[in-house]
């Protein structure tokens, strides 16, 4: 199955693009997705401990199983709202 992976901030810069299409076995989890993407972009390992995921624009745990056409995002620690 194919899922769309959106990349932001430091993750986007490592990947070199705001979006990837990743081909995965049916029933894969977010962890499996991330392992695959990290295989392609090893520098993502530096973010791994702090990264959150969203699936279809909701934060999701890393054991969540994905479905075809899901929109996943790699979400580094957020920092909106000014330095205050």
């Amino acid at each position, binding site marked *: 199955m194919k899922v769309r992976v*959106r990349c*932001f*901030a*430091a993750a*986007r*810069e490592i990947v070199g693009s705001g979006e990837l299409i990743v081909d995965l076995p049916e029933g894969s989890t977010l962890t499996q997705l991330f392992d695959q993407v990290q295989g392609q972009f090893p520098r993502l390992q530096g973010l791994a401990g*702090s990264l959150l995921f*969203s699936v279809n*624009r*909701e*934060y999701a745990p890393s054991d969540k199983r994905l479905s075809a056409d899901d929109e996943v*995002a790699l*979400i*580094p*620690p*957020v*920092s*909106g*709202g*000014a*330095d*205050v």
Partner: protein
Amino acid sequence: MFDITDQPLSLEPLVSAVTRSSSGAVASFLGVVREQTRGRQVLYLEYEAYREMAIPKMREIADEIRRKWKVDEIAMVHRIGHLEIGEVSVAIAVSAPHRHQALAACAYAIDRLKETVPIWKKEVWTDGEEWVGPSG
């Protein structure tokens, strides 16, 4: 009014958007790009958002506020793109019949925005740049 924009922010449109005939108080908050950030000289900031998720997350914060306080309306707008020192990165306005609700809800809104809304800030200094975490 919940939005992400690359245009300069001002409070007046948010205040107008939230004021109802039942509103006795409008509390508002602006986040401004400061000169000093942990001792390094910031040249400018770059903000980036996951817009399609950030706006629903702002609406969720507004829903949380409505469950906690009696408020009239809530507006939150975050700017993205290139921001210079002194520019406004986020504007929030909350109206309520009474001041304590408006003030408490406004403080809650900025706290939660910083925790849950997918927006990122990169600091650019004379000698480098870095994506900043939530404590930054």
